């Protein structure tokens, strides 16, 4: 791995090779260590280092980009020349914006030394904890322990210099009955590897697996649901791109108003729904800069049910006379002090969902998604969990989900099965449309 200073030095050195008036150099290095397990044994483990230098050159609106993971002077110079050669061939882009000059970027405190250096000796005890707990109950464990360490540095010809380092980690476990008749899941993502509680991950997944026995087949239909925090995050995180002002202005998103204009300022959700992003949240720190190299800052997208902001790229801001605003770097749905047990207790008849799988957009405009419940779906009757339920497919939009939400619980950091991360609470929502039965376990 390179240090921040070494990465910045390399960016500076590469920038000096550039001959065109505009050039941006991005140096990215990452080291990843992980161990996978399945069928109560380790299957693969690896340690890998990656490096990328990306050169983006421009002249009078014509741009070229070339990237390489070759670090020697000759290779970097060749990449700079190639980016410039492309820029000399490319026709000008009508939407090109010159890079910003020097900026003050805040420290988002996205780094922990022990997380960045964890290897097999730190990972294998977690795996042993999960496998031993599963074996003790005659169950079968599969999962992943992983950590990453990233260093990024940026330099451009307008005087902007920036560097950042981050580390992240997580454990997930799927516990299945030996005969494949039930399955439970739990996960714990953490910015600090030392905070990972694999015993709790194992206990939660085992509890889901043991409880999901002899599931009942219920009819598809609209149900009140209690979503575990991961299930909430699986859906709500899909809203974040829709706050793009251009898409709303052009009539392509749920924030477009029929006949033209946007729904900015409109109260679309209950009072207790607040969706925001905050690069400094210690549970999920994000990059200090946006993809347009402006300082990241906290933004409210939905404030007490009202559409509070749209994100404006520098180009779209220039076309509409607005100020550029950062797109969400992370997503936080505000929670409350209500426990999940109290959420369940508030439901007369409904379904408790562990998480969702294979979620895909059906309609990008309304954000209608389809996907399936997985690894634990349970019936709630008179405030208590009574039965396991055969899995369902849903067709629903996170917009309607939040409009139909009655209560939210305590927010935690989650990482969905398909990699989505956010800070989300468990919640209770009415009229969630489960449209067909899935026989999958």
């Amino acid at each position, binding site marked *: 791995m390179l240090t921040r200073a*070494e990465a910045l030095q390399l960016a500076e050195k590469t920038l000096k090779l550039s001959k065109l008036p505009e050039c941006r150099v991005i140096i990215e290095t990452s080291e990843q260590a992980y161990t996978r397990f399945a069928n109560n044994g380790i299957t693969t483990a690896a340690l890998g280092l990656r490096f990328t230098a990306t050169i983006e050159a421009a002249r009078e609106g014509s741009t070229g980009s070339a990237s390489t993971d070759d670090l*020697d002077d000759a290779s970097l110079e060749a990449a700079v020349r190639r980016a410039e050669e492309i820029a000399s061939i490319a026709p000008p882009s009508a939407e090109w914006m010159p890079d910003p000059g020097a900026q003050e970027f805040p420290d988002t405190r996205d780094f922990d030394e022990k997380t960045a250096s964890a290897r097999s000796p730190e990972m294998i005890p977690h795996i042993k904890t999960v496998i031993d707990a599963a074996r003790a109950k005659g169950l079968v464990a599969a999962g992943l322990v992983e950590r990453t360490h990233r260093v990024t540095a940026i330099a451009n010809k307008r005087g902007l210099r920036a560097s950042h380092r981050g580390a992240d980690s997580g454990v997930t476990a799927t516990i299945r009955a030996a005969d494949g008749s039930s399955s439970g899941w739990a996960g714990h993502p953490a910015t600090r590897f030392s905070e990972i509680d694999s015993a709790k991950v194992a206990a939660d997944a085992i509890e889901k697996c043991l409880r999901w026995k002899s599931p009942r087949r219920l009819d598809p239909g609209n149900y009140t649901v209690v979503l575990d925090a991961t299930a909430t995050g699986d859906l709500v995180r899909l809203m974040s791109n829709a706050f793009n002002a251009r898409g709303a202005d052009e*009539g392509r998103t749920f924030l477009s108003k029929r006949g033209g204009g946007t729904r900015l300022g409109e109260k679309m959700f209950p009072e207790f729904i607040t969706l925001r992003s905050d690069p400094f949240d210690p549970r999920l720190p994000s990059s200090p800069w946006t993809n347009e190299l402006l300082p990241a800052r906290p933004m409210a997208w939905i404030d007490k049910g009202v559409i509070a902001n749209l994100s404006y790229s520098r180009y779209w801001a220039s076309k509409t006379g607005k100020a550029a605003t950062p797109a969400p770097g992370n997503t936080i749905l505000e929670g409350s002090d209500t426990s999940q047990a109290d959420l369940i207790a508030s439901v007369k008849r409904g379904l408790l969902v562990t998480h969702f799988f294979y979620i895909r957009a059906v309609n990008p405009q309304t954000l209608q998604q389809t996907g399936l419940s997985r690894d634990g779906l349970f019936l709630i009757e008179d405030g208590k969990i009574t039965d396991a339920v055969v899995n369902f497919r849903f067709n629903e939009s996170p917009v309607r989900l939040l409009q139909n939400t009655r209560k939210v619980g305590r927010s935690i950091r989650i990482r969905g099965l398909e990699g989505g991360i956010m800070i989300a609470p468990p919640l209770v929502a009415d009229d969630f449309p489960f*449209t067909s039965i*899935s026989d999958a376990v």
Partner: protein
Amino acid sequence: MLNRRQFLAASSAALANQLFGAPSTSKIPEAKLEALGVVALREGKKYRASYCDIRIVRLRSQSVSMRMTSERGTGRTLSVPNISEESSFGFGVRVIVNGAWGFASSPLVTPEEIARVTGEAVIIAKANAAIQPKPVQLAANKTYRDRWVTPHEKDPFDISAQEKIELLAAATSEVKKNVRILTGTAALTFRSDDKYFASSEGSSIQQYLLQTYGNVDATAVDAEKGISRTRNYVPTQASAGWEYVPQMNLAENAGVIREEVLEHLAAPPVRPGKKDLLLMPNHLMLTIHESVGHPTELDRSLGYEANYAGTSYLTPATIGKRIASDHVTIIGDRTSRRALATCGYDDDGVKTTRFTIIDKGIFKTFQTTRDQAHLINEKQSHGCSQADSWATVPFQRMPNVWLQAGSESTTLDDLIGGIDDGVLIDGRGSYSIDQQRYNFQFGGDAFWEIKGGKKRGMISRVSYQARTPDFWQACDGVAGQSYWRQYGTTGDAKGEPTQINAISHGCSPSRFRQINVLLTD
């Protein structure tokens, strides 16, 4: 850890050019690659690895795109071109020590680093062996010393970016000929893998794999109704060179999708319910991928992907049983012409092959790698080992999986003529399937109503949902070989951390009876 000074001083691009740069008609690998490979194999032997292999890989890609959009306020057409290139060079070493796999990789291709990283892989294998219920067992494999190159006439990396952008500008301009089109986009992507493999069993294999993709789309908005629609033309993504690009006919098809997106914008919604489906090859390919390709992966079936991609409704006990109608014969194939998963050897060094997965509706076998074949009592791997980079671990990935054409006398019109109330679906849309590959739901890119045996106007807001074995049992017609087309999917995700794979699926238009059709948003 890697010495930083050494890391910063290395000269790997020049080395990559030396190793892979010159095209060769030789049938044996470049001598310098073999010399580097020997370093890993020698170190593996020193550490008493029972098996060791190394892959030295250079990946290159070039993406060229043109977006034309109507300027806010004036309606004037603005052009937004983009050209970017990426390259990546490094190596990965696998070892088996004490019956367990270990893997490590590095972007610094030097003899010293190869020796060091082999030692890292050994450390990882030894640690893994502590929690390893059964030792790894490799199926027997012949050894090869060979070179293999994707058949092509012109290397797309030798063609000027200017020629590419001009071609895309012509296609996009065609889309924008109607002022009601908000945005048109066209893109070309080229990928190459220079790959060297050497194993402690004696194989030494160099390959050059090429892929070429293109697409054009059109987006239109009806602001009064609050509807936005996009129509895509995606020709077959192919393992081919530049000679394939003119055959894509991007500009010609740009005119077709321009008109179809406007028709789709005004098309009435489908009436939901049970209907017959006529699925075109550029749509059915993805249904094959999700509902036949993935459930016939042996690692999924045996629980090795349980924590992410899931397991399978098929088990080794299902072999020999009926899972589809007798119209359905499915082949796994890493040798088919221009298909994306076609290569000479897989990442276990197994010579690629083709094998029958479903024979007239009867399930025959799974996709396998060398360390899996014995799990279903087979003696040889089906050659399905693949890693998406030098930095990632090879594991079982899908080969090209295709549906055999029906009788040559069966035409598209015959199939449509046999439908009283149905939908013809073209292109890819939304797709989702459960973790055992039972319940799936697919949308499409464009839909036409079929009434009284005739294709009528476009309809909108269509998805269909089915249970995999029921769906394939409901197939009662597959058009003949002259209708057979192959389409690729380039972003197939599997494994943790996720790896991406590119695969082709061929089929003819096919008919499915009484499938549940949904009305979506």
